[in-house]
């Protein structure tokens, strides 16, 4: 007759052999995924076998979480004590987190202050230091030297391009206006306010490099007298260079 000892012995030997064959018990994440039905059929079958091989884990897995109406048998003072202990332990941690946050913020602020200080110092030094300008392109009106003359090609370097527009002798107008137009799109990029007559027969114009893409532009000079406007000169500008994307 098979007795309880036989059953027990066989049970233990089956468990030992299964564990040797199947390996480590499933992780909590695997079991929760198994419970939600998220595992593939192969993985689910493996988890089932492991649960049979690890009955303590199977028992815990199968134990339902108590329901809402399954009220506790813990006295209120025990819950008070546990809450106070919990609050004490987590207050320290949250205080440490707040301190860490402010320390981090202070470090960032210090870094930004140093960077801004360095930038300011650099700008100030640049303002105080004399600078030699490269040869300025002096543009003469089209028709004077012809389109495509080497002098009309500029290569922007730095933030701004300075050009000199020679008016020749057209200085008998009350005021002047300059306009910059991109040739291929006929887009008017810039139009000046009325300008007084220049004393040296030329206008010095500073153009932001970012406003100039590679291509051909025309700067047009108008002479203004009362409400009348007369086109007095056109300057062709070829822009070539790395700073003009």
């Amino acid at each position, binding site marked *: 007759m*098979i007795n309880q000892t036989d059953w027990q012995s066989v049970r233990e030997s089956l468990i030992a052999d299964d564990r040797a064959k199947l390996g480590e018990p499933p992780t909590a994440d695997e079991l*929760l995924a198994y419970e939600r039905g998220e595992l593939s059929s192969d993985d689910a079958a493996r988890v*089932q076998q492991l649960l049979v091989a690890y009955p303590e884990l199977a028992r815990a897995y199968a134990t339902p979480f108590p329901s809402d109406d399954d009220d506790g048998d813990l006295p209120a003072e025990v819950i008070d004590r546990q809450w106070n202990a919990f609050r004490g332990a987590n207050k320290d941690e949250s205080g440490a987190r707040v301190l860490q946050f402010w320390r981090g913020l202070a470090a960032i602020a210090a870094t930004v202050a140093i960077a801004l200080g360095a930038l300011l110092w650099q700008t100030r030094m640049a303002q105080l230091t004399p600078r030699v300008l490269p040869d300025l392109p002096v543009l003469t009106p089209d028709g004077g030297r012809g389109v495509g003359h080497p002098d009309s090609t500029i290569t922007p370097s730095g933030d701004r391009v300075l050009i000199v527009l020679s008016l020749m002798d057209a200085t008998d107008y009350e005021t002047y206006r300059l306009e910059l137009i991109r040739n291929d799109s006929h887009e008017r990029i810039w139009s000046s306010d009325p300008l007084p007559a220049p004393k040296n027969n030329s206008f010095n114009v500073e153009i932001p490099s970012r406003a100039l893409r590679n291509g051909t532009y025309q700067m047009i000079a108008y002479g203004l007298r009362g409400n009348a406007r007369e086109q007095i000169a056109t300057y062709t500008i070829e822009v070539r260079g790395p700073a003009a994307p």
Partner: protein
Amino acid sequence: MSDDRFESIYRTHYARVWRYFRKNNIADDEAHDLSQDTFKRLLERMNQIRNDDPGPFLSTIAKSILLNRIRARQTQKRSARMVDIDDPDLIFSEPAAPAERDYADRETEEAQQRRLRAAIESLPPGQQEAQRLQLEGLQYDEVAKILGISIDAVKSRLRDAKRYLREQLGEQS
């Protein structure tokens, strides 16, 4: 998420969480420790809860903590230090030798166990799993949850398994 709301959740659900660990044969002190761990993890995830019922979150966290604890113990057992038969440590934990039994009795017992094991192993996998889980003292509903089948299916598998084992083991079963 205000501290007041968390305190209210803590006070409302603490006993439930503690009781869950106690139901799983965790000693009282450790059940309190694991409950605190559960609420600590809940506190870290409070921004996910917003105004939802915290019950499902607590249930998942508590289960995860319990399963990890049991798994860690199982893994510890598996990786326990192996001792040699002559190791001095073995002497202190060596159980008293059982009373000497007759050789014939031992032979009979071992033969019985071999037959029983062979019969269990020859059961179809589904019946074998149900049978073995029931041997562990698990109830129908627990076996059903573990195997992902209905309680009726568990009963059916167990009925078939027992019938098969009786046939295999004859009157001895």
